[in-house]
Each structure stands twice: as structure tokens, then as C-alpha cells.
């Protein structure tokens, strides 16, 4: 099954998104949170992202979601620190963090491929909440 890494400047946000995504997938999908700095303040910690990747890595693939643009560079560094053969199975997405993670978890729990999970997460950007 595809697994998920949730990256945020906030540890609380990352943990909360992980919690919501786990609820939607009934705990069947491996999800790791990587948010905030070691001293408890807001920020992106590439080592934390790397630890999360190592925790949930699966050859079926890992989808990495980020909250803001400047998390991308750190996530890229973390991915670069994985083994070469693992890197091919890790993808970052532009999907919105909360909505994307929840949708990704559902799709992953249905056994969809990394590409399919990524596409579904990105489609969340177009979903309307107000009817």
C-alpha cells in the first residue's frame, strides 16, 4: 500500500492531519507526521522529514504532502538522502495539505498506485466545500 508523509511548519498541524487521514483510512495506511522544529517552534526540519520517510517507506510508494512552498526544498533534501532505488518510489505533491492527505489516505487504503493516489490528492484543489 502507498504510504503518506505529512510535512508542515507546525508539529500540531502535521499530527492533526495524520490523525484525520488515519481516521479516514481506518488505520490501514502508514502515515507519518513531520512538523515543526526540535525546540517546539514553527519551521521545517529536513531531518524530521527523512525520519518520517524511513518510518513509512514502502516499495509501493510514498506520497509527500507539504503545507507551504518553502517546505519543498527541505522535503527534496530529505528524499535525496534516501537510497537511490527508494527515491524512484517517493513523490511530492502540490495537493492541499489537509484535503489532499485525507483523499490520499482513502485512495491508498483501496490499494491504488502512487500515481493514482497523487492524482486524487491533487484533484482536491478543485473540490468545493460550499454548495
Amino acid at each position, binding site marked *: 500500500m502507498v504510504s503518506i508523509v505529512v510535512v508542515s*511548519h507546525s508539529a500540531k498541524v502535521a499530527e492533526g492531519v495524520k490523525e484525520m487521514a488515519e481516521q479516514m483510512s481506518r488505520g490501514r495506511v502508514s502515515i507519518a507526521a513531520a512538523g515543526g522544529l526540535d525546540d517546539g517552534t514553527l519551521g*521545517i526540519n529536513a531531518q524530521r522529514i527523512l525520519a518520517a520517510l524511513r518510518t513509512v517507506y514502502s516499495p509501493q510508494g510514498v506520497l509527500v504532502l507539504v503545507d507551504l512552498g518553502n517546505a519543498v526544498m527541505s522535503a*527534496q533534501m530529505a528524499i535525496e538522502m534516501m537510497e537511490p532505488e527508494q527515491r524512484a518510489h517517493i513523490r511530492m505533491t502540490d495537493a492541499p495539505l489537509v484535503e489532499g492527505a485525507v483523499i490520499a489516505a482513502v485512495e491508498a487504503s483501496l490499494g491504488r498506485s502512487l500515481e493514482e493516489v497523487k492524482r486524487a490528492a491533487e484533484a482536491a484543489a478543485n473540490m468545493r466545500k460550499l454548495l
Partner: protein
Amino acid sequence: MITKDDVIRWLQRYARLLEEHKEYLTELDAAIGDADHGINMNRGFEAVMAQLPSWQNKDIGTLLKKAGMVLVSTVGGAGGPLYGTLFMRMGMAVGNKDALTPEDVVKMFQAALQGVKQRGKAEPGDKTMVDTLTPGVAALEKALAAGEDLVTALEKAVTAAEEGMKATIPLMARRGRASYLRERSIGHQDPGATSSYLLFKAAYEAWRELDDRPS
């Protein structure tokens, strides 16, 4: 030759400059960013300083790489991956040497610039660190090619870096949080360009008295 102790003094000098300029860097970042560049860089370099004693017996390349790794997990903002990459690439360029020739120093700074450009995908004119690093490295290369000694070359690099930093003032930001401000980023000096200038300044100040050392 630049010894390992010289490199350590450079890092210490940089940490000190970042501390002295903490409010200034944060103010610059308040104008066109999220007001934390000074705070972030200080947090990162305080962490580097704390670990430095345990790296005393490592070669220069390893020391620089370790500094980079600390920065990626402690700086927090865009400076984390950018300065992390900068130092890691410097470490990779230097390798397991315990002393650096002037040529090694140039290659080190060239690798720093390449690393930052690859990581952040910025070009000169985007109003970033690259606007300071590019002229700084160019001045260093030119001076050494002309046969100047390292300290003189570094002095010229600092002047060029300062000019590059100030040249970011009229630019419109094309990277980072500042780019969201678009025209409103014009008229403000870029914080990353400023902290990059301090990196050159720290090297010059740390190595200035090498002139008096028998070679």
C-alpha cells in the same frame, strides 16, 4: 594555507556576525518576508556552535558537511535547506583535507554558489542569496587568477558581495515569501543576500591576519 582552526574561527566569526545582526536581519525579513530570518539563522548557528567542539578531530570537509546537516534541521525557514546545501557542498568540494590552498578556497565558494542555485533554482536578479554569492565568487576568482594573495582576494570578494547585496534593493523578488509581495518587495534589501554577505565578511575577518603568518 587555511588550517582547520582557521575554518573553525570563520564559523565562529559568522555565528558572531549573525548574532550582532539578528534584529537587522529580522527587520529586513519583516519588510518582505515572515520576519524570522535573523532568528532562524541564529538558532541554526547556535546549534552549530554547540556541536563544533565534538567535530574538532574531523577533517575540514566533514566539519562543513556536519554544519550543513545541523542547519537543515534547526534553521527552520528557507535558509535551512539553502544554507544547509551551501555548507554541505562546500564540504564535498573540500573533501578530507586538513588545510586549504587559495585554490581550494575558491573551489569551495564556487561549490557553495552552485549548490544554492541548484537547491533554490534562483538566478542573479531574483533578489536572493545568489545576488551576493555570484559577484562575491566572481571577485574571488578574478583576484586569485590575477595572482593576488587570498586575503586581498577575500577583501575584494567582500566589497563585491556588499555591492551585490545592496543591488537587491531595487529588485522585485522572484523567489520565496518575498515574491508574493511582488512590486511591494522593491525598495527593500533582501535578508538572504545580507546573511550571504556576512559569510564572506566573516571569512575575511577570520583570516585577515594570515598576511602576517609565515607561509
